[in-house]
């Protein structure tokens, strides 16, 4: 058995292997824009499926299922990209003539870039690839993520996954005012409804580990068992302690890895008894 962790598990970076089955075939690429969903964590999350008006995301049997796109039905309307809390959906369009295509990227920083300005296109690992032109900006708000469309050479459409605004374009510190920020503290643990303010408050009160914060706030005790919140809590702890994330213990992981009904567990042992 290959016990080495994949790049995805180790660094969170998807490779060509991970993207297999998630990209359209030749025909669908020519037809028009389509959604690429790079979602690899089985967590209880389904806004993409329920928001799609074209039934272009294969239905879930379980809320922890991963989304897969039916490219014959996908119109690239970007509704799913606007509601994905993980910013894991990108709208690619390579149907136009010529060498250039476009990619629509979810963007949650302020300020938003301006149309026609040059920004720095970045890959999955965050490294700068090349400057790219902003062709469209859809503002966020009311639970919807802002989407920024970049013009990108077609051969890089599956490489560009983020961008940054060059420093000289950010007019001055303080561009982002309190009025720009959401009024409510962002939710960190969605299963138990624990927000960032509570996590920071516990850290300020001296709790030093993920497990202590879990005991006090319940963050990480829900059905997803910390898959969504653990990294955020770890980075808050690391920042507070002024050390790198790697130096922090990730805390306890408890079985089972996915929720299992009591009936299934009880029957499992009966079947074992019959077979033996």
């Amino acid at each position, binding site marked *: 058995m290959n016990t080495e962790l994949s790049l995805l598990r180790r660094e969170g970076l998807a490779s060509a292997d991970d993207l297999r089955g998630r990209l359209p075939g030749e025909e669908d690429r020519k037809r028009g824009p389509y959604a690429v969903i790079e979602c690899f964590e089985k967590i209880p999350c389904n806004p993409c499926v329920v928001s799609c008006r074209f039934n272009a995301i294969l239905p879930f049997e379980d809320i922890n299922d991963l989304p897969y796109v039916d490219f014959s039905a996908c119109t690239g309307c970007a509704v799913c990209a606007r509601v994905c809390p993980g910013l894991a959906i990108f709208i690619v369009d390579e149907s136009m003539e010529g060498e250039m295509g476009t990619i629509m990227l979810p963007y949650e920083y302020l300020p938003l870039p301006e149309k026609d300005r040059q920004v720095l296109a970045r890959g999955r690992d965050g490294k700068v690839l090349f400057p790219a032109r902003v062709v469209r900006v859809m503002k966020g708000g009311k639970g919807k993520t802002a989407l920024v469309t970049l013009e990108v050479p077609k051969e890089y459409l599956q490489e560009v996954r983020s961008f940054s605004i060059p420093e000289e374009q950010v007019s001055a510190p303080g561009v982002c005012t309190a009025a720009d920020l959401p009024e409510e503290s962002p939710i960190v643990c969605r299963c138990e409804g624990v927000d960032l303010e509570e996590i920071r408050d516990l850290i300020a009160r001296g709790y*030093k580990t993920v497990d202590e914060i879990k005991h006090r706030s319940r963050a990480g005790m829900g*059905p997803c068992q910390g898959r969504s919140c653990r990294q955020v809590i770890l980075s808050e702890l690391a920042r507070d302690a002024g050390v790198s994330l790697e130096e922090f213990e990730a805390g306890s992981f*408890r079985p*089972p890895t996915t929720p299992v009904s*009591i*009936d299934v*567990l*009880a029957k499992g*042992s009966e079947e074992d008894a019959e077979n033996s």
Partner: protein
Amino acid sequence: MQKTADVAIVGGGISGLSIAFQLAQAGVKNIAIIEKNFLGSGATGRCGAGIRMQWGTELNCLLSKYSCEFYEQAHEIFHNDIDIEFEQGGYLIGAGTDEELEQFKRNVKLQNKLGIESVFLSPEEAGEILPHLDITQIKGATFCHRDGHLNPFRTVEAYAEAAKSLGVSIYEYTEVREILRDGNTLKGVRTNKGDIKAPIVVNAAGGYSGLIAGMAAVDLPVYSQRHQIMVTEPVEAMQEPMFMGFSLNIYIQQVPHGSFIMGRSDDSEPKDLRLTSSWHFLEEMSKTCTTLMPRLGRLKIIRQWAGLYNMTADAQPIYDEAPELPGFYHAAGFSGHGFMLAPVTGHVIAKRILGEEPDIDVSCLNVSRFKDGGLLPTESSVV
């Protein structure tokens, strides 16, 4: 870290916190709690956190009654606003055999005599309290409405805040490596962060109390055994009391948050310091659960974990000063009931250290009973 203490307490679980709190309340000034991980990270934070007064021996009834009454007034006693979530939904204890049924009748008589308001119920009456219980599985039941359960994390926090406000020092992530002694004179403790000289050391290390006694080279006849718990997804409130059965081998409660938490005993569990989880437990627990409460079968298990029972031969605690080493106190061997007993543990150990008489005579819970053949009558009311 401080260099000296009047009392050094090894273990920042509920027992150590309670002992520190009671000592500080009695006026002892220089108390240090030393915890190798964080407060409540051992058995305290892993337990079912149930509190019941329905026991089969007079001593256990009295000990648990003290604790229950303490927790009822915890808010006033602690002088802080931390809600320990003491839900007094009662304990419904089901009898699985005719023999147990007869024992339960005697238990209720004893409990009533001691002022514990328990009642004996027919299976039908039990079914009215717990509609999702398959009453064909029980012969009868007892119920006490003042029993209940707490949030162990909040209780730790409340104890710790109260102790700190009385001047108790708490050292987390500090591990006791040695008990310092000079011949038969106790000198203090050596930790990974330095020595604390102390004439009195309390061993409240729960599952690890045997290790600590070993460091002091004193005899403590205890062993640790793994016990496991599993918890479901949260659902609407549907079960008020804790349900428990001894021959039925289950305890199951629905916490205020909505999850069901359940555990059972298993003689085949390892008797060491392992805290791993087993698949075997999930299956056996699920069978027990669905037999008694078929409707719960549709709930999903989201987590399981393990903690250590610190066991003695008669499943009763040891409250004593080590005969070989004056000043070294045992608060150990709770056999799965350390959380419930914590308030009374604090009371009796503090009184003993101060040379005063406790409200309840616990002299029979001495450490010598295991050698002298003075084991206590077996308590049948345990899971």
